[in-house]
């Protein structure tokens, strides 16, 4: 089946050589390329204008908090080749700025507004209301991994009384038996 991946390898190699980028053919109809953030617009334009990747499927962000980076993914589709190309880039999490690309696909405007609100990524020149889903939000951007929803719910909403008698099974059992779980082991206890 490997020779079925001709088209996939073709687009991959084109982008690899033109932009000095890394990338893989993930499987049939799925290709990913990793580019620097200032190359994204040229890669997208190249794919759209010259290789028939005229459909923007979606764009999204992943918070790699441990590595201090946001991963931005632009998934674009060629209706002719039926190949989906992921253009991926990483940006600094502490200074999250990304080029505004809604001139290439207008619908990116919505995705960028969402990412601005949910991850706090700035897109200089982006037109559109600051508020997308949220209203009067003054916490850290909520889709960031370090935003604690449980904590937020506790302090924001009224907790209806009547359930304080709930018991933790593991803890109840240790009370019954006198078992003492050492501190270093509790991370393996049931949540």
């Amino acid at each position, binding site marked *: 089946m490997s020779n079925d991946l001709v088209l996939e390898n073709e687009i991959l190699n084109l982008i690899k050589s033109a932009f000095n980028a890394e990338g893989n053919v993930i499987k049939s109809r799925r290709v990913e390329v990793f580019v620097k953030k200032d190359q994204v617009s040229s890669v997208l334009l190249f794919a759209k204008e010259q290789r028939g990747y005229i459909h923007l499927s979606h764009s999204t962000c992943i918070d790699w908090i441990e590595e201090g980076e946001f991963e931005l993914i632009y998934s674009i589709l060629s209706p002719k080749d039926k190949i989906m190309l992921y253009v991926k880039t990483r940006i600094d999490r502490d200074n999250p700025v990304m080029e505004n690309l809604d001139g290439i696909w207008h619908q990116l405007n*919505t995705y960028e507004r969402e990412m601005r609100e949910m991850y706090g990524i700035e897109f200089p020149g982006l037109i559109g209301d600051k508020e997308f889903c949220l209203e009067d939000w003054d916490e850290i951007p909520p889709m960031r991994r370090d935003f604690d929803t449980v904590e937020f719910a506790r302090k924001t909403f009224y907790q209806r009384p009547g359930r304080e008698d709930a018991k933790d099974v593991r803890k109840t059992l240790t009370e019954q038996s006198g078992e003492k779980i050492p501190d270093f082991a509790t991370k393996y206890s049931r949540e």
Partner: protein
Amino acid sequence: MREKETTLYIGPQHPGITGNMMVKLKVTGDTIISSSTHVGYLHRAFEKLIEQRNWLQSFTILCRFCVPEPDPMELTYARAVEELEGREVPERAKYIRVMVMELARLQSFMLWYAGQSGSAGLYTLGQWSVGDRNYVLDLFEMLTGGRVYHMYIWPGGVRRDLPEGFKEKTLKTMDYLEKRLDQYNQMLFDNTIFQKRAQGVGVIPKDKAIEWGVVGAPLRGCGIKSDVRIDEPYEVYDKLDFIVPTAEGGDIWARALVRKEEIRQSISIIRQVLDKMPEGEYYNRVPNPMKWTIPAGQVYTRTESVRGEIGFYVASDGSDKPRRVHVKGAAYTHGVTVLDKVLKGQNIADVSFILNSLGVCPPEIER
């Protein structure tokens, strides 16, 4: 005399869509100059919640992305997890999944009939189709235990096997619905009011459609044959015989024609699936859900729903919870940027009519 520009708010509650969403219009007289979509009335932070639940627990919220058609969400997520883990799905489960997909499509089309005719002021048909939809929901109740939210398709297969007598009951329901469809069409497509309201309204230009991000029936209504079930067959769609209808014009009428034919294709697919379904396992058991980890990786799976392509971009970091699940719904483009373009120059009275034909589902936008 030049008319003054006014701002008009449609929504958050209005009949054009399933869910709450507000469209802010700038109009002069009766004509729309521009529009902008405002969401946030439904925001339940599903994507965030999924990140905090383990791989199996997540599957119970997925269906709540979209009330009219919850099942494609479950399937798309299940397929993404299976692909990440490399888990095989038994053949029988694949057939059952396709059947569920088409039943879901069917009942969603019945809601569309109600919405599309209702927003044109034709209320009789809506009563009929929503009433008849209950017969499909009866099937779901029998199969899954739930009527609207099924929580039935999960990674590894489906949750329970077909109950006894299900096949017979389904075939009977299909026969009944097929007969009723003729009566629906007499009420809608043969109706001058609908024809005059729908033709030439809400036009998406064919040459722009793909670039605008249009998918599903609206794209096929532009005469472009595009359907994930054909383009990238999943489960057992490649073993089934069905056509993907298209229509020319790009207007509400064309989209309605496409759906009119698709609903018959769904019935045909359900019959084929029930006929060809093999015996055997229906579930490739996952490990204890509390300790189930998925290898690190990222995948994108897509499924054709009534509204168009639904996709899940799922990233795993190798732990027992998803790192990120991004849900791409058709409404994300249809309801915001495409809507803005389509509404330009239309009448105020057509807004909900157009919204309905685009299949906008606000929870897909906010997630």
